[in-house]
């Protein structure tokens, strides 16, 4: 059996990233769109940690922790916006969110 290289991790991360992009671009439910963004951020984290292993230093892992911080902040603000919007329009569908459309 072939040993696991950096390339294997890159393929997995690319698959997760594409799944997240599909979710963001096609789903209607805002909650699932936000979850797809988490999927994308996880793919990026996996790449960072894999490259950290490849180069033998820890910069990639530190960056992965910063990306996690960003994901937490983004989830909190995004879900706050979602709740505020749901209170106003009683819907969670992205194609019905057009209050700013002129």
């Amino acid at each position, binding site marked *: *059996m072939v040993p*696991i290289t*950096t*390339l294997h*991790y*890159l393929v997995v991360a*690319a*698959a*997760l990233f*594409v*799944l*997240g*992009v*599909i979710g963001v*671009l*096609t*789903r*209607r*439910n805002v*909650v*699932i769109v*936000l*979850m*797809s963004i*988490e*999927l994308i951020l*996880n793919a990026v*984290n996996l790449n960072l*940690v*894999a490259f950290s*292993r*490849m180069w*033998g230093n*820890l*910069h990639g*892992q*530190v960056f*992965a*922790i*910063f990306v*996690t911080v960003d*994901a*937490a*902040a983004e*989830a*909190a*603000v995004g*879900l*706050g916006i*979602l*709740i*505020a919007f*749901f*209170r106003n329009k*009683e*819907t*969670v*569908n*992205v*194609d019905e969110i057009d209050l700013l459309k002129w």
Partner: protein
Amino acid sequence: MNPAMNSALNSGMAPVATPWFFYVLAALAVASGLAVITRRNAVHSALALIVTLLSVAGLYLMLYAPFVAGVQIIVYAGGIMVLFLFVIMLVNIERSSKERQFNRMWPVGLAAACALMALFVSAIAKGNKLLFPDRGITLPEGSNTQEIANMLYGEAGKMGQYTFAFEIASLLLLVAILGAVIMTKKKI
């Protein structure tokens, strides 16, 4: 990484995790990632996302990053996903699970995602040995958390390489907390 450690790893200290672990975790991550974007019920999507996060944490462990794996489990699977589940309970999932699940532009989105996948495939295939050489470097597992702490907080009274960025990140979290609280208030 010094060559002595490399040779020591190559000679006797073979990692416990076999390639099978990688394939099982990767298949689990991709399969549940697929479930996240296809399920009709948002709660099922959230549970599938937890499975993805846990298997990615397992992949981090295979990459000798135990601290990042722990952060992944505690912050992502423990914190962010609870937040998601709370919000799913607050908004009306009964109605939205009976509606159309994909927006009208879904063929365009799918085509764009396929183009992105083709880009990834060509990049990985082209840069196979050139950009991503398999150097066989193994990070020291025992001191991982301490090394990360030295980079984030600094050591021996000196500022670390990422101390400033760390402070900025804490400021970002403060702003996010304030934003979330103000956003969900009924009357500002």
